[in-house]
């Protein structure tokens, strides 16, 4: 296993519909994503625990893309991954943030 940490700055404060939201399941080729509101001095902190070792650069690219679409401030994103593909990761990130902000999951 590998634990990866990322931090993004320059996001906008958000007004979530719920304090936390979860998307996905920790199963093969899948992952779970927990999105929580937390005072982080305006940062968006991401922690990934993944069973697939050595894919840090790809996580960086997927999360950069996510933050470009959803620049969130004071949000903690926690991920438990069992080898989800980048497309699945992006989908689950969007589902989790939609549920968090009050859209449909």
């Amino acid at each position, binding site marked *: *296993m590998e634990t990866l940490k990322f931090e993004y700055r320059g996001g906008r404060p958000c007004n979530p519909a719920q*304090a*936390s939201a*979860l998307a996905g*399941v*920790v*199963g093969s080729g*899948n992952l*779970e994503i*927990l999105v*929580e509101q937390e005072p982080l001095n305006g940062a968006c902190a991401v922690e990934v*625990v*993944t*069973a697939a070792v050595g894919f840090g650069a790809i996580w960086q690219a997927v999360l950069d893309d996510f933050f470009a679409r959803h620049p969130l401030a004071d949000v903690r994103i*926690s991920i*438990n*991954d*069992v080898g989800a593909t980048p497309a699945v990761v992006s989908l689950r990130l969007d589902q989790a943030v939609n549920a968090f902000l009050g859209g449909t999951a």
Partner: protein
Amino acid sequence: MTQSYYEASARERLAAVLDPSSFQEILPPSARVTSPHLRQLDTPAAFDDGIIVGEGRLDGQPVLAAAQEGGFMGGAVGEVHGAKLVGLLERALDTRPTAVLLLVESGGVRLHEANAGLIAVSEVMRAVLAVRGAGIPVIVLDGGQFGCFGGMGIVARLCDTVIISEEGRLGLSGPEVIETTCGVEEFDSRDRALVWRTVGGKHRTLLGEAGELVADATAAFRAAAIRALALTPDLSLEALEREHAALGQRIERFGDCHDAVDIWRALGIEAPERLPLLEAADFNTITAGKRA
């Protein structure tokens, strides 16, 4: 459009079975009560350890409910997973809800956690019996992709009733385990028709192990769970002895049968080979009064 219970996640099942927006989770993912064992084995943990517990309402009645997530390690029971279930059942003794609902989906004990998982399942069994003994019905809903096997298969049969779909399976050793230990001649776990007619919901219902067969739809499970709230189980010693006698007769009546279809024929069902093709409503009509 009907929502498939089989395809839904544990969280989606709870949301669909209970009254809308009534569920309040205890120890939600944000509490991060995760397995202490999996990390040592270099295996990813889940924030809820594969089980969601909490309280809500069913048809306006207060209930406690748990749902196992088969997608995480086949719904297997680890130490934390089991402790959440035991804690929920013990809470019922304090809060006295109308019923406890167990939305099971589990291969049994989580072997990664060995003895801790085994102890957890035994504690769940004791807690189920304590809740039933206090006069609070424990209702099982079984319709998930992984069925209900191993220690959770025993737990299910300790409860007051099992509501099952054909796709929901119930047993002790699962098909793969039987094939591995006894050989493919004994049981071919890749023969889906054989698997379903042996451990599937229709056979479990005909044997009297499940109380009601429902269609694979969350609304059907919800409606059956509401009906089950009215159950008044007979927990007398006489009823227990009748049950034991019936189980003893079962092996005498059906011990020579080589296939579930032989048992259905022995139960007096005409053209039993058509049963697997029937929708739940037709199945219930045709088999009414002909259960073991």
